[in-house]
């Protein structure tokens, strides 16, 4: 497995932020594909437009035969992009989504005969090793992609130089640590016990309707060690989830050995290969979502629509919320002309040209104002529709929130006093948190 090319795309700017070809790999590919030797991996707009189109970012609702044909097998995150000059020939790319609307992309060395019009069956077996390798490789670089463009390019160049000079892992895994963003320039007088930082990041999702409420949550614990500290011994940690009745479904980093004793998981990190890595990913279902919403929409006369939203906050959630808003996107073809009346805490406004109603409770969901929050927050709003083309029965509200407390109560500790200092932070945010209109009755 090798990478032929690595590049970074900014979706919002529709621009290439970084582009690097691996010359030895590209030369080898051309030698082994003499019929395609004049096919260079595109650059600039020739690369961007077909790529964004293939990913469905451009023309999402228009049928594109090279993208949407039933003959093309979905191989995401591996995509085959047609060349601009000949839509029958494709180049492969593996795409990793990164924060700030950026894409980290790698063109893997794959046999050109494996392109979508080739032999599909053989492709599955032959390509999986290569795709897996490239995806893991890209994942190791993903944390650099959120830096500013110049810093990112600098760090990527250094990392490539040290870690993948020929488009594959050189074996200098430890050297990758040097590619981390430069942390504080620590001086000797600041030296204290080396720190292990743990970030517990959880997301909760929910879909509620008249028929059912489905909710679950998942999280990742990121571990960061002091880049300039030496770790000669194993790192031992204990992990527990004190708000969960049982053990969640959990997967660990390959350097971590884990075993459970009742509700406590003993983790032994034997060989530290990276100094910032996800220690584990876990998930669990929720019987009671942290915010229980209710949405009722009724259509009145003369284009008037009454909307009722209620949010029931759990006790923990109420005290730890730091952002809360509700968005009500109108079904395609509908637009709100104006708000007639609104009775609620917070700010109610129209956004996106009247196609969305926003109820922002941000000011009330800050730590200083939390005690003022009631258990039930309600919004009664009457609006006048400018366009009412589709039924509002299939309307939903999105609830967006963040909180400083995890739902699972995940906590880590050191089993015995060691030379390390443990610093832990938690954050929770909503993922897909949606409530459908629970008042299907329409008054016309």
């Amino acid at each position: 497995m090798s990478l032929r090319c690595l590049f970074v795309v900014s979706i919002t700017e529709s621009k290439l932020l970084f582009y690097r070809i691996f010359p030895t790999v590209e030369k080898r590919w051309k030698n082994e594909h003499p019929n395609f030797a004049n096919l260079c991996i595109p650059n600039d707009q020739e690369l961007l437009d077909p790529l964004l189109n293939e990913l469905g970012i451009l023309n999402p609702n228009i049928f594109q035969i090279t993208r949407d044909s039933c003959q093309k097998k979905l191989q995401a995150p591996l995509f085959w992009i047609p060349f601009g000059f000949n839509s029958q020939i494709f180049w492969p790319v593996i795409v990793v989504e990164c924060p700030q609307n950026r894409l980290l992309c790698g063109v893997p060395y794959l046999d050109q005969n494996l392109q979508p019009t080739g032999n599909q069956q053989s492709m599955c077996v032959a390509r999986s090793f290569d795709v897996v390798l490239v995806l893991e490789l890209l994942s190791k670089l993903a944390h650099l992609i959120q830096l500013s463009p110049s810093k990112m390019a600098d760090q990527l160049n250094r990392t490539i130089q040290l870690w993948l000079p020929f488009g594959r892992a050189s074996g200098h895994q430890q050297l990758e640590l040097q590619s981390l963003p430069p942390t504080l320039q620590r001086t000797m007088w600041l030296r204290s016990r080396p720190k292990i930082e743990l970030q517990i990041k959880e997301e909760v999702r929910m879909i509620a309707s008249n028929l059912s409420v489905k909710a679950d949550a998942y999280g990742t614990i990121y571990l960061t060690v002091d880049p300039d500290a030496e770790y000669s011994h194993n790192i031992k940690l204990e992990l527990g989830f004190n708000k969960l009745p049982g053990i969640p479904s959990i997967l660990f980093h390959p350097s971590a050995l884990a075993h459970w004793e009742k509700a406590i998981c003993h983790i032994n990190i034997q060989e530290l290969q990276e100094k910032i890595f996800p220690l584990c990913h876990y998930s669990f279902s929720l019987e009671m979502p942290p915010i229980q919403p209710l949405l009722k929409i009724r259509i009145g006369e003369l284009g008037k629509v009454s909307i009722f939203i209620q949010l029931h906050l759990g006790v923990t959630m109420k005290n730890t919320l730091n952002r809360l808003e509700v968005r009500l996107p109108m079904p395609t073809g509908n637009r709100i002309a104006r708000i007639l009346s609104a009775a609620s805490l917070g700010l109610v406004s129209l956004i996106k040209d009247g196609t969305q109603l926003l109820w922002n409770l941000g000011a009330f969901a800050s730590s200083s104002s939390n005690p003022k929050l009631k258990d039930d927050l309600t919004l009664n709003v009457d609006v006048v529709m400018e366009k009412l083309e589709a039924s509002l029965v299939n309307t939903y509200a999105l609830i967006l929130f963040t909180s400083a407390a995890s739902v699972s109560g995940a906590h880590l500790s050191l089993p015995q006093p060691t030379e390390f200092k443990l610093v832990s932070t938690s954050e929770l945010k909503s993922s897909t948190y949606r409530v459908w209109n629970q008042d299907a009755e329409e008054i016309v």
Partner: protein
Amino acid sequence: MSKEITVFTYLPPDCPERLKKIISDSVCSNETLDNLLKLLGDASNESHLVNIILDLVPIICSDSTIQSSELEFAILSLQNIYNMNLLKADMKCKLLEVIVTVLLTYQPSQEVVVDVVQFLLNVLENKTEPISTSLTSMDCLIEIEMSTQGILEAQIENFFDFLNHDQLRDKASEITSLIIRNATNPIPNQSRVLCDLLELIPSLKPFTMVTVAKNILGLCRVEFQTELNNSLEKLLEKYKTTFDLCVLQTITSIQECLGGITETAVFLYCTHPAMPVGRNLISLDLLGSSLHLKKDGFEIQQFEPNDFDGADARLKKLLLLNKALYNQSLDSAPFYQHFENLIAFAVKNGSSRALASVFRVMRDMLESKFPTNAAQIVLHSTVALGARHPACLPHIIDFLKHFGSNHHGQLPDAIILGLVDAFDELENSTVMPHVEQLIQFFMEATLYRYEFCQPRMILRIIRNCLEEKKNSNCGIAVLELCQALIRNQDYEIFQPELKTVLSLVETSHSESDVKQRAWMLRSLITHVNTDSLKGAFDADMDLSSTGKIEKTDNPLIYVKILLDYNKTGDTRSESLPVYWSLERKRSFRSFYFPLEISLIKNAENYHREFVGLKIDFIVDPKWGRAEPIYIPVLEVDQVRKACLQVHPLVCSAATIEARAVMSTMDGRIFLSCLEPIHLKLEDFLNPLSSSKSFVELWDRLVSQSDKCYSSVLFLPQHEKLLKAVEYGELERFQMTKKKPTELAMVTPDSFLVLVRILLVKNSWNAEILVEDPSVLPVIHSLLTEFST
């Protein structure tokens, strides 16, 4: 000079001045390269400068104006600089990489490659070298072996010692496995080396582990079972709950070699919500492409899509679910339920990619032939999707193109028939916004047999659209559709409708180009025929009033009706009944009976060819009506296929009189009476798609008390009816073969009829449920006919 300008763009902002001066003073790339190498040799202790020069050397060497001999000299110079041993370890590593990059990006001679290999081996064997340079030299050797396969075969033993080296074990395993994979013949002691590598796999780092596995697993056959098992056990013990895909890929690949994927973290991984979707998809693919998925390894429910899944995850899960259910011979009901959910999701989502997932699942169903009624599900779903959401017509066209060949028997025809029928019933306002997609779909439909594609219906829909939206800019598309119809179908048959549409295009479009093309096309189809043909095509012609027609009692042509349309030569293809649902709009359906028309050869008929043949069907107007048929030319020994289209207003048997008027090439016109066509009562009952369950339909109908009428019919001569069932005479109405006495059908006016034949207290009865009381006597007659 242009090259030097390019080099300047690669210089960092903090580039030393003397380096800039050297570059600007050089007149060509060759000279720049020479000067840089000299500077590199002189400034070995200046890391910053060395670093910049090493970045520049491969860029300059990629200039095509530099001769091979110059490059070879450069490689030699770089080796000498390395051997001077004045560089720091990290720069030495970079220098090695530069040597190999320059070597592999031009066409080196074998001697140069061998020289560089020997140089790298020397670095590797030099005990005074730091670990980092040894690692880099091995990495460089791997790159050379990948580009020049087999060059290291003779050197493989040099790497064996490093397999036990703590820090070099990974690279040594990688290079050894690569040499073995590339070797044209087995290396000495290959089995032992493979065993050693297999034993090492669990202790390797994930990237190396999966690379080694990729290189050697294909060579590990039956004799390596024990070693494979041992490695697998260690891997499973160490990585019971890992999320590293390299490790999981290694584990599942070894399991494949040992007979099947079973319990591993990959099952948890592929649906784990905390993992990025791309990783879920890869692991679902990993299982989906596995040839051996052991039953005991997983729960089917795990792969069922959930409400949070997007289109991609639903697609992959459904493909895997289909495979798993099929392999385990399980009921397809859960699959069907989730497929329906996928359709609902895709429609709600509206993106083309989401809709594509529906058609990809359908493609998979048809290819895997699972569920067994896959074709019916596909038909039902495609027609429903296309009729309710015409925005997905481009997907349907693509789907038809893929399955339009003869691989799937009647399916494409049935889809087109169902859709044209559905569009004909839709309100204009529903169709209008999608007229462009509709025209594209009709264009595709013209490639199919005309009895299914229904050109007249198509032209009627287009005409309505044009009348409704006079200023539409789809004139050219309509013209292309008309041309496609003329090209692919017997256009004389629908000439009047074609002319009307062309006139509309001509009058409603302001563009002179469109007007002219429409006029030309209309003129062409008007004047292309002879006068006699034109007369025969006149639909309003009153045959009785013309004395020129010669009446004959001899049927000059033979019309054969093909009533056994459910039976096809392909035993795998199924009959494709109509789509029906309780919500369907009540309207009379048309019925189509395939016909074969041929010329009768006998003493009374010496004609070898007729032109402008028109067959009129005469039926009692109270019963309904039948469409005439036009055949442009009919030659002796030729069988023309056509379709009898009837519109019954009542559900009963019918006898249809037929007469034909035709011309000979010498201008004589004959009127001939043909054999009457007898259509039975059951011919006007549509079979029902078995994608629904009989029990479900029965319960649903019973629960709708306002629409349900029941009756019980005592069957005095039940054995006759049971025999008719046994001999397959009622087969088309049976929803499943398992329960042949449960019959379901739909009347021409779309009323559902359900019948079950039961033995109650020693007496055979038929329990009947209908949606409309007027249907009961019809069903009574049908059952009575079969039981007497």
